[in-house]
């Protein structure tokens, strides 16, 4: 029980990272982006490429950091992946979504995002193959916190949770302490007024994609670090990330974080209440429950 809770928190941290960008993008661009979760896969695979590259170039970077399975090469690759994924998110918006925004309604965007997701997922398959891949073959062992009840925790897990929380904190500070953050919030609330207040809309849209892509990349790398890489990994997170976004309320960053943890913990505990085969439906049940009780999510506001 406690173990499930702990594991749920870890999954929750990853889902939260994915949901932060989605909630902002959905709020600002007013459409449900089904291709969003693919950014996680892009990030994880970019990190894989650079991890291998750095390891080959600088053998010293192969040294693991403390008790973690993360090494310096991967840590550097993570940074590169965050930037690269952010840029690809901006590029996808420029190439596809912006054009469709100008021509057709928001629901065409929803469908276009289906198509984009399909293209991205299969491009990754084409380049990297379907095989499951790993950053490191080594298995990092869990530390026993308690024997009765049995509670185990992995150093990687602690690191991922800490890193995810740190990223969220940084982002929170940016939103609440910098005028750039004010501008982001302003655009989310009222794009026209934000423009009048001197905010360049297209720059903010790009910034949202950039941030969302970077956070998603981090989520993807953290996931792959504790699990493995597969072209379908983004797709597998689709429903959880959407669930977190909706639970938190579209547009609410804090809601997305909380929603991510709720979804993660609920999935962790799902096995306690339902047969294992039905667990994949859990995020959907959460979505449904929240929409019925609070149609605008926990922190969401009614949109005009």
């Amino acid at each position: 029980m406690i173990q499930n809770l702990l594991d749920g928190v870890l999954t929750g941290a990853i889902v939260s990272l994915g949901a932060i960008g989605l909630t902002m993008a959905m709020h600002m661009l007013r459409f449900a982006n089904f291709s969003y979760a693919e950014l996680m896969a892009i990030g994880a695979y970019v990190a894989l490429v650079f991890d291998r590259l750095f390891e080959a170039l600088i053998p010293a970077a192969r040294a693991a950091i403390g008790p973690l399975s993360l090494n310096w090469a991967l840590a550097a690759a993570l940074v590169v992946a965050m930037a690269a994924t952010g840029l690809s998110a901006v590029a996808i918006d420029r190439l596809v979504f912006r054009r469709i925004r100008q021509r057709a309604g928001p629901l065409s965007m929803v469908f276009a995002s289906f198509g984009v997701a399909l293209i991205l997922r299969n491009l990754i398959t084409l380049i990297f193959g379907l095989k499951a891949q790993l950053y490191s073959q080594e298995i990092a062992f869990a530390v026993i916190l308690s024997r009765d009840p049995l509670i185990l925790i992995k150093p990687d897990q602690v690191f991922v949770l800490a890193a995810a929380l740190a990223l969220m904190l940084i982002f929170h500070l940016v939103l609440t302490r910098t005028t750039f953050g004010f501008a982001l919030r302003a655009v989310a609330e009222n794009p026209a007024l934000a423009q009048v207040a001197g905010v360049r809309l297209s720059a903010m849209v790009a910034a949202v994609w950039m941030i969302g892509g970077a956070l998603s990349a981090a989520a993807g790398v953290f996931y792959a670090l504790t699990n493995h890489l597969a072209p379908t990994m983004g797709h597998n997170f689709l429903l959880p990330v959407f669930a977190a976004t909706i639970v938190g309320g579209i547009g609410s960053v804090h809601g997305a974080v909380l929603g991510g943890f709720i979804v993660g913990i609920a999935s962790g505990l799902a096995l306690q209440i339902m047969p294992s085969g039905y667990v994949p439906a859990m995020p959907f049940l959460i979505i449904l429950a929240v929409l019925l009780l609070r149609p605008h999510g926990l922190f969401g506001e009614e949109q005009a």
Partner: protein
Amino acid sequence: MSGPALTVTGLEAGYVRDLPVLRGVSLRLESGSLTAIIGPNGAGKSTLIKAVAGLVPVTAGRVLLGERDITGLRPDLMQGLGIAYVPQTDNVFRSLTIRENLALVLRRAPDRARRLAQTLAMFPPLAERPGLRAGALSGGQRQMLAMAMALAIGPSVMLLDEPSAGLSPKAAAEVLELARGLTGRGVSILLVEQNVRETLRLADHCYILAEGRNQIDGPAERLRGDPVVAEIYLGGRRVAAP
């Protein structure tokens, strides 16, 4: 008053293609003047002011700021040029605090802290609790914050869209008096108002629009005495009164 701060010539604009709301409007906003636009609902008053602010696509005509052509310029660049636009509703960011609202409009200003303090000092009710979320303000205070946000950038031209709408008569009068006072400091104000009487009392110059076109214009004093204007816009009470 030296030359126009803003010149609009033959402006056509609208939200949907092939369906212009403005069908050729021209006006001049003299430097340091308070110029009002009045007219019936649907005449295109708000659209005119939005088109000037760059929020509605312009299909024909020109907008000049002084000598400079700013037709269809991006709204954020307009703000950079010293044009402050205050929309009628939703004119503050409700999820941001008073201070954050002001910091946002000042985010490119090098001396942000100083100007923020200056602006707050102009509006004591706002300065009392700068950490309050704008969503929690009353209608009058919100309008005040919107004006403060416009003033913070030290604008040369202000575009005000019905600043008195939804306010109590007292608050409405205060807002208009505030606008009037600003012209004394060299700010040129273009104002859309429903409150014709009050507007004609305060404004220097007045344009009357109907169906997206100029109808009548002239110095406010003259229009106050114009029988046609009285008939249409001032209730025509001389006719109806027993």
